[in-house]
């Protein structure tokens, strides 16, 4: 049985959300809401009400970056200062904490920000080959529902999209 990808384009969020709600109520057997991807020109705040809560993990990488930054900062500076004993310190501490805190603070932010960025690239699925079912209208003013289904679910899904006044339905065979 071949796998298909279907995309329905809707004029607004209300119609798209109604379609997803129907999928959620398992009106199409064999199709789960977890298979649904919503494409939209803006982020809709109430999206989780219909799609269910989908977790975001970027902040964990941010925390890792921050902890790494501050730790690396301390050891980098202290290491550099400790090998600097040949120079007279004039009675000052070899590893001066107050001034090191300033630089550790900067390194905390530096690494946290870069880790956040890379985590974002990785977790949001950017830099991947673009799906051929992409429509430019999604970046303009339409809302798209993308769903991977088996061949036998194809027609019911299309009917569901039509019932919810889909402006356009596209499909492709995945394998």
């Amino acid at each position, binding site marked *: 049985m071949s796998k298909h990808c279907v995309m329905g384009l809707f004029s607004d969020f209300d119609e798209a959300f109604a379609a997803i709600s129907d999928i959620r109520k398992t009106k199409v057997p064999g199709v789960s809401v977890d298979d649904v991807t919503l494409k*939209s020109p803006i982020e809709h705040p109430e999206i989780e009400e219909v799609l269910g809560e989908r977790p975001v993990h970027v902040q964990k990488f*941010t925390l890792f970056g921050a902890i790494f930054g501050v730790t690396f900062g301390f050891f980098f500076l202290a290491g550099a*200062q400790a090998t600097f004993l040949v120079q007279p310190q004039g009675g000052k501490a070899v590893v001066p904490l107050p001034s090191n805190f300033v630089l550790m603070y900067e*390194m905390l932010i530096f690494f946290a920000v870069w880790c*956040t960025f890379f985590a974002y690239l990785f977790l*949001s699925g950017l830099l991947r080959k673009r799906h051929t079912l992409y429509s*430019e209208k999604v970046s303009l003013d339409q809302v798209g529902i993308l769903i991977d289904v088996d061949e036998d679910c194809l027609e019911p899904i299309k009917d569901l999209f039509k019932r919810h006044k889909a402006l356009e339905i596209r499909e492709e065979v995945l394998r």
Partner: protein
Amino acid sequence: MYNEKDINEQIAWAKINADVLRSMENPRKGYWLAVLICVLMLICAAFAEYIQYTTGMGPANLNNPHMWGMYISTFVFWIGMSHSGTLLSAILHIIHADWRKPIYRFAEAMTTFSLMTAGLFPIIHLGRVWNMYWVLPYVSDRGHWPNFRSPLVWDAFAISTYLSASMLFLFIGMIPDLAICRDNAKGWRKKLYTVLSLGWMGTDRQWRNFRKTYLLMACFLIPLAVSVHSIVSADFAMSIMPGWHVTTFPPYFVAGALYSGCAAIITLFVLLRYFFRFEEYMTTPIMEKTCKLTFAIAMVWTYLNLVEFCSVWYGHDIYNKEVLIAKATGPYAWVFWIMIFCGSVVPFTLAVQKLRRHMPTMFVVSLLLNLSMFFERWMIVAPTLSMSHDPHQWDIMYASVVQWAIVFGSFGWFGLLFLVFVKIFPSVSMYEVKEMVFHRRRHLVNEEAAARFHRRKDDSQTTTGEPGLEGA
């Protein structure tokens, strides 16, 4: 009283895309004139730098005791200017002030380009520009590290962190718009936007991660911006020079930075609105809100000035007091009084609604405010160096033509970077304006529904004396 909306909520999403994309193709002639002026200014600076590079620091008129001249005050000025993006984008994003949405993109770009301009000045100031890498934290061939206790090294860390963070913040915020550009562009632009949009498709997963990432970046950018200007103030405050060793310097610098950043936003607001015909997005009510914010910051800056004057006056440190008196009555007094007038008196025009709504007036006022901020930095550097502890070192110095030309050219450099940016990338955030319009329209619909409901309820009460079915 004017009762206008920040933006017309009936504006169609397709029109937003069309207007912003058109702006990148078809600006007014004034845009090209501005580009030409910036190029000429940059040529002036390049010529002056060539003289300085080949001759040495003599032509710049930098000599003991004035080892820090206008280069360093301009460096502080540009660092200050960079705080605009942080304020308008990060702080207002966190407090959900959605009126920032049509104007935050160019403020973020300003942040990045101001930092790139600021970063040039310590290098130019060195004279031996080929030794600029000495400030980087690396171990030299003699096993020496830079002095990590020095605020000048802190500067290098802070500015490079701020530059990279603000560039990432600008870039991340632009990705959905770059995808819109990719979907509509042709030729080299399409190739550029395809690479930069990183395959954005507007999926719910991408939006969820985008929001969280943007919020996290904003949260980091605010303390970072405060730390950057505090560290720049530490360049002065950590020394024991009269007029510099002041406890209030970090907040004073941060307030001044936000002030000049806001003033620059007003300047560029007026210019972009004209160049790209953005009257529907950069509206008068948004200008009014920006002006009110600038006025509030101007008053904070004025207060911190007074605090500094009073603490020096009542502190009875003779050297500090002499420098303060010299600022107001000495050879630099004209600079000082222009600074006070433009920084503390001129902002009252921002409190007058009629003036706030007049774009040409606000353009001139914003330039005056930034003139004040430029002189403020000059007033920090020059008087202290001309009257330090040793009277035999007292000297008056005015910047030479070479210094002025390089400073002048830095505005051309900044302007050119900015103008090229707004021509290639969308200067109004399309997806954020769509969100703004969407939420406001929805709010309006809800309000109308509620009003209709209450009207029916009242009608049914007056006719039957009992609550109607809808009310029940």
